[in-house]
C-alpha cells in the first residue's frame, strides 16, 4: 500500500492538526474530523483505510463509535489514542497513550492495516 488514507478523529483542534501534519509528513493522506458524527457522515464519501480515534469525543466515547460502526457491518481498522489514564475497557484495541511518539503511531497504523 503506497499511500494509506487515514481519518483522524479528535476534538482538540491543535492535536488534530498536528497529527494530520505528522501522518502527511510520513506520506499518508489524511482526513481530519472533530466528532464521531463527522466520521459517520464522511463514510459516504470515501472510506478511510484506517481511523485514528480519540477515546474522549464530545458527542460520544471513541469505543462506542467503534462499536456503532461494527454493528453496522462497517469494518474499519482503528487505532485509539487517549489522554486518560484508564485504558482498561479497550483491551481488544490498540490504545496509545498521549503524547504519542511518531514511531509508535506509525507502527500501530501499519499493524492494523496489515491485520485487515
Amino acid at each position, binding site marked *: 500500500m503506497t499511500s494509506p488514507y487515514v481519518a483522524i478523529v479528535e476534538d*482538540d483542534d*491543535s*492535536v488534530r*492538526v*498536528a*497529527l494530520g*501534519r*505528522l501522518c*502527511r*509528513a*510520513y506520506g499518508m493522506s489524511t482526513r481530519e474530523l472533530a466528532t464521531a458524527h463527522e466520521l459517520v457522515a464522511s463514510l459516504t464519501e470515501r472510506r478511510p483505510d484506517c481511523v485514528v480515534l480519540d477515546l*474522549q469525543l*464530545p458527542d460520544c466515547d471513541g469505543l462506542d463509535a467503534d462499536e456503532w460502526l461494527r454493528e453496522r457491518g462497517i469494518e474499519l481498522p482503528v487505532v485509539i*489514542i487517549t*489522554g*486518560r*489514564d484508564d485504558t482498561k475497557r479497550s483491551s481488544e484495541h490498540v490504545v496509545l*497513550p*498521549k*503524547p*504519542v*511518539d*511518531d514511531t509508535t503511531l506509525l507502527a500501530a497504523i501499519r499493524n492494523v492495516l496489515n491485520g485487515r
Partner: protein
Amino acid sequence: MWPHLSKNRVSRIAWLGALALGYYVAVRLGLSFRFQNSIIGVVWIANAVLLAALLLTPVARWPWVLAVTAVTHLAAMLPDAALWRALWQIGINAALTTTTALVLRRFADLPLTLATRRQVLVYTVASFALAALFALGTPIVVRSALGLEPSYTHAVAWLRVALSNGAALLLVTPVIVLWGQHGLTPLERLTPRAMLEGGAIVVCLFTVGFVLFGTGSEIARFPALLMLIFPPLLWAAVRLGPLGASTALLGIAAVSAWGTAGQLGPFVAFSDATKVLSLQLFWITMSTPILLLAAVIREREQAESSLLTLRQHLTHATRVATAGELSGALAHELRQPLTAILANAQAARTLLDKGFADADELRMILDDIALQDRYAADVITRLRAFVQEREPHFEPIALDVVVRDALALTKALLDRIGVSVDADLPPDVPRVWGDAVQLVQVVLNLILNACESMYHTPAPERRLRVELARNDTHFVELAIADRGDGLPLGAQDKVFEPFFTTKETGLGLGLAIGRSIVTAHGGRLWGENNEGRGATFRVLLRATA
C-alpha cells in the same frame, strides 16, 4: 570562662559595668527612699536588679554577676554602714536572689515573659515566699530578735524587710528582664496607631498618677479616688501586653513613691510606718491582678493567632486535596498540548529529513508549538498559584476573573463528564475585598460540588449556570446553579457542616471550608433547591465601591 572573641569580651565587660552602675544607683535609691527613723528601705531595688541580672545570664556566669554586685554593694554601703553589716547583707541578698532565680528556672519555664497565667503566678508566689523566708536571715531581723535593734520588734522588722524585697522583685525585676530581653524592638515594631494608643495610655497613667499622688493631703479624704488608677492600668494590661503592663505598674509605683515622699497624696495622713505599709500594699495588691490580666489577654491572643494559622493550614490542605481530585483531569489537559507539540516537532523533523520542508509550513508548525507550549505553561501556572501555601493577601478582586480561573481549572473535568457551562459574567460588576486564591477555592469547590451532584443526571442535561450580578448597592452576588440531585430536604444547611458528605470519596470539607472562607470575607454562602431540578449556591460578598 570567657569566650576567645575579644569583641564578646568587650561587650561582656561593658555589660558587667552597666550592672555595677545600675546596682549602685539602686542601692543609693533604696537608701535615700526611707522614711525618718527607719533603716529599712521602702523598696529595696538593688535585689530586683540583681535577680534580673541572674535571670538574664546563664548560670555559668552567675559568679561574675554576684562578684560585681558584691563589690558595688560594699562601695555604695560603706559610707553609711559597718563592714560586718554590709557583708551580711551581701550574703543574704545573694542567697535570696540566687534561690529565687533557681526556683524560677526550675518551675517557671524561663525565659521570663509573664505571658502565661502560670508564669505570673509562679513568679509572684516564688518572689514573695522567698522574700519572706530570707527576710528572717537579714541582720536587722536577727538583731531585733536578739534585742540589739531598739527601733523594731522582730516581727515588724521581718514584715518590713519582706515587703520591701517582695515589692521590689514584683515591680522592678519584670521590667528590667522584659526590656532586657527585647531591647527597643517592641517600640520599633509599633504601628503609628499603636504608638498613638501607647502614648495616650502613658499620658492617662501619669495624669491620674499626678492627680492622686501629686496633690495635697485633701485627697486622703476621698480614698475611693484611688480607684482612678485602675482604668489606665487595665487599658495598659489589655492593649500593651506584659511588657507594657509591668512598665505601667512601675511607673505608677514611682509616681506614688515620689508623691508620698513629698508629703502628698492619699497616704500622708498616716504615720511613717503606716505610710510605708500602705504604699507597699498598694503596689502589691495592684501588681498581681494587672500582670495576670495581661497574661490572660496574651494567652488569648496567642490562642487566636494559632487558631488562625491552623485554619490557614487547613484551607491550604483542602486546596491541595482538591487539586489532587482534579489531577486526572489536569493530566489530560496537559497531555493535549504535549501531544500536539510532539506531533508537530516530529512532523517538521520528518519533512526536513525528506527534503519536503517548505519554509511557510515550518513557520506555521513552530508557531503552533510555541502556542501549545504557552497553553501548557498556563495550566501549570494556574495550578501552582492555586496550591501554593502563602499568607492571605487581601485586595480588591474582580469576581469575574475569579470565576474564569475556577472554570479554567475545572475545564478538563467539566469536559470529561460532559457538563456544559453557561456563564454570565459581566465585567462591570464592582470588585470585592478579598483573597484571590481563597475565592477561587470557594468557586472551585462549588463547581466540583455541582458536578458531583449531577452524577445521576443524564449527560445531555448536565448544565451549570454561573451568574454574577450586583445584588444591591453594597453587595455582589455569585450564583452557581446545577441540575443535580439537590440538597437534602429539610437539612439544606447540613451540607455546610464539616465531614458531611453524600459521596463515597472526598472528605466533606469543601463546602464547610468554602463557607468559612466566605464568612472570613464578611460575606455569606448558602444553598437552596431549585424549582425544577438541582440546587443553587449563592455567595454574597461586600462590594468595595
